């Protein structure tokens, strides 16, 4: 089979899975929907491996393979082909997406076991993976936009999966609306590029771009900035990030899949894919880098004070995606993609661990009610520690290598990039603190009642199921979570999935040790062949310094977290009181929701109300609609008056009329 055939197979399996589950959800017995969904993604992963092996058999100069299935439309200069591009970057992405997704599908079989929407869940999940694979395999802008929009729609479906929870449906709508803002940016950005290159095909665009654009020309900068809008909306970067924490309303495996491992990385992929264009638009690159750096720092501060365990991880995701966006924007493509991969492992692992502890708490997500689960949930605890160490960048865990490499390349750019470099290390320090704050609060301290029960062998079961966000009472029918909760200690599929990811979180960093193996840099080189920023670094001193600084910051962050939340919990209380304004700022998420509300939502609502009151009511309703009905009414009143109902009157009119016509013709002759 050729390489591109493998690419098409990668798309085919999840699509088939979606169709089979969606059309057969009534007849599929038991848990078979989960098995079908998981094996579909597993097969996609195998096909991705096939694509990898087959791609490596080509010589490095010929590793960008495009294939078109059919031509959808060819009109007015737009050639809309259903085409994929299989190159090292897209193969790298499909491996991560299908690999992590198959583990998450496996985990979901147990996690959603009691849920009444089991088959629906797997249909959505397979559709999501299909959309994401379509996005990364797309060979032209058109298919990219299709995949981009599908991902947004699928994430709406999954966030609102428990559709009887009003908080969940609202979060889904919010995510969808913000993603559509990004979609609009992507489409408009594509237009700016297309206007000059006259092609939608990626390879043709990248070949033409250096010839038709001057570096820093207005149109290319505008195009790249608009593409960046798409990227930051999908990747939850400031200021379009507010949907991500709210999206934690979805089931926990969904958070692991969409909001950690795959969907939010689409923005990073987009910038890496469009690197040829971005390098012609330095202003857009710089904007991306600054947005990434600001996001990684702000999200870190917010994560410090969140009490919902899933939201802590969500803000940490924002922060880590900030590193990646910054990385691919300053030219650290391999490092950014490498961090994307390691992050997918440890973040999915952390979310799965969070799912397990939420199961042990019978759906409760607040860190304030968790404590001392270390003995009750030993496996989950181990996973959390591995994920936490990887996230904090402690050697030899995977996050250590990838994050430092991004910052190394940032530092090497020199000039004002040193500010980004410093911000990155400040973010790393915060990361260690908030990660271990979460772990220490959930697993150390005195065991809570639920933990004690679990130590005695009983899984806590809520008397009345409630919404963890609002405390509203719920039932366990379809549209709400099912009646039972699951913990990893008691479900083999969850343990298998978490073990695989834990191995990845420990070992994935070893594939690219600076100066030792550089596997990813070598593998991705064909995609970035023309980039002057790609070739690796020269400053060994900075490399060593960065690695040591990262380790020291990570360890001291953990030490501080240990001192504050394990040894002397009173410090946290005093600090919060002393620094009340700062605490409020962080706890209110830097008032971004309020800011967007004041700047966009309220003016739009006011404009809408004004338009209803004036234009709609006076012009449309009264003048246009009222005017035309008035004319019809008056006309029909006149005609109606003639209809007297007197038969003889009609007869007389008829006779007179005929007589009149006859006389007219008589007089004519």
């Amino acid at each position: 089979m050729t390489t591109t055939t493998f690419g098409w197979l990668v798309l085919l399996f999840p699509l088939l899975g979606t169709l089979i589950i969606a059309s057969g959800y009534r007849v599929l017995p038991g848990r078979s929907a989960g098995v079908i969904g998981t094996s579909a993604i597993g097969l996609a992963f195998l096909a991705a491996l096939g694509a990898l092996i087959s791609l490596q058999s080509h010589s490095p100069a010929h590793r960008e393979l495009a294939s078109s299935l059919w031509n959808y439309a060819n009109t007015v200069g737009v050639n809309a082909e259903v085409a994929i591009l299989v190159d090292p970057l897209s193969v790298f992405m499909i491996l991560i997406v299908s690999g992590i997704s198959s583990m998450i599908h496996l985990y979901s079989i147990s996690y959603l076991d009691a849920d009444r929407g089991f088959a629906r869940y797997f249909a959505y999940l397979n559709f999501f993976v299909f959309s994401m694979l379509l996005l990364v395999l797309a060979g032209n802008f058109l298919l990219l936009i299709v995949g981009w929009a599908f991902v947004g729609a699928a994430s709406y479906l999954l966030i609102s999966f428990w559709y009887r929870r009003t908080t969940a449906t609202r979060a889904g709508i919010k995510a969808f609306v913000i993603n559509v803002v990004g979609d609009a940016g992507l489409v408009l950005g594509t237009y700016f590029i297309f206007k000059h290159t006259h092609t939608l095909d990626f390879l043709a665009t990248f070949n033409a771009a250096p010839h038709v654009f001057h570096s820093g020309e207005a149109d290319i900068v505008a195009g790249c900035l608009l593409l960046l809008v798409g990227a930051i909306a999908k990747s939850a970067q400031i200021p379009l990030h507010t949907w991500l924490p709210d999206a934690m309303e979805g089931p926990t495996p969904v958070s692991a899949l969409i909001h950690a491992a795959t969907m939010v990385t689409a923005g990073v992929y987009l910038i890496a894919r469009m690197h040829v264009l971005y390098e012609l638009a330095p202003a857009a690159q710089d904007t991306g880098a600054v947005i990434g750096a600001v996001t990684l720092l702000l999200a870190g501060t917010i994560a410090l004070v969140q009490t919902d365990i899933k939201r802590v991880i969500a803000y940490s995701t924002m922060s880590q995606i900030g590193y990646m966006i910054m990385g691919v924007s300053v030219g650290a493509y391999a490092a950014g993609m490498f961090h994307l991969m390691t992050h997918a492992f440890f973040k999915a692992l952390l979310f799965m661990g969070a799912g397990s502890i939420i199961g042990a708490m019978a759906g409760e997500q607040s860190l304030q009610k968790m404590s001392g689960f270390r003995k009750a949930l030993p496996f989950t605890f181990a996973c959390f520690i591995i994920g936490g160490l990887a996230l904090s960048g402690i050697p030899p865990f995977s996050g250590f290598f990838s994050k430092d490499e991004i910052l190394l390349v940032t530092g090497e750019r020199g000039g004002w990039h040193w500010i980004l470099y410093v911000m990155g290390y400040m973010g790393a320090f915060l990361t260690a603190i908030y990660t271990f704050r979460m772990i220490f609060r959930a697993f150390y301290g005195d065991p809570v009642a639920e933990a004690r029960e679990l130590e005695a062998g009983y899984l806590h079961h809520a008397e009345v199921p409630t919404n963890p966000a609002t405390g509203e009472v719920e039932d366990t029918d379809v549209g709400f979570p099912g009646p039972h909760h699951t913990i990893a200690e008691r479900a083999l599929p969850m343990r298998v999935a978490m073990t695989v990811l834990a191995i990845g979180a420990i070992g994935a960093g070893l594939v690219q040790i600076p100066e030792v193996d550089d596997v990813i840099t070598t593998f991705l080189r064909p995609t970035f062949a023309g980039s002057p920023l790609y070739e690796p670094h020269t400053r060994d001193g900075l490399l060593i310094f960065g690695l040591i600084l990262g380790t020291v910051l990570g360890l001291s962050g953990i030490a501080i977290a240990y001192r504050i939340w394990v040894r002397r919990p009173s410090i946290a209380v005093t600090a919060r009181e002393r620094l009340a304004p700062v605490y409020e700022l962080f706890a209110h998420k830097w008032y971004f929701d309020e800011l967007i509300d004041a700047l966009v939502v309220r003016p739009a609502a006011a404009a809408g109300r004004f338009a209803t009151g004036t234009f709609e009511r006076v012009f449309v309703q009264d003048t246009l609609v009222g005017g035309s009905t008035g004319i019809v009414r008056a006309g029909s009143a006149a005609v109606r008056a003639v209809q007297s109902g007197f038969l003889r009157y009609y007869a007389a009119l008829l006779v007179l009329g005929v007589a009149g016509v006859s006389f007219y013709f008589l007089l004519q002759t």
Partner: protein
Amino acid sequence: MSIGWYLAVSAIVFALGAAGVMVRRSPLVVLLCLELMLNGANLALVAFSRMWGNGDGQIFALVVMTVAACEVCIGLGMVVAIYRRQLPIDVDELRELQG
């Protein structure tokens, strides 16, 4: 005899019928007057048929008679229905279809 006389009689019969339709109020009489009008027309058709010396006009007259028979059938049926429902037998009273 010239065609003029036939036409004059035909016109008088037609006008009598039309006047009857316009002034009489009983549905039965209105129907009778309609028959008068049709027969006035028939007379003219037959007269023209004679004048041209072919039978087309007479065929027309036969068709008109058939139509007239149908029309009377329906008309009388309606009159009977009106009578059965004890409605006034007066076209001026039966004016529910006004606009």
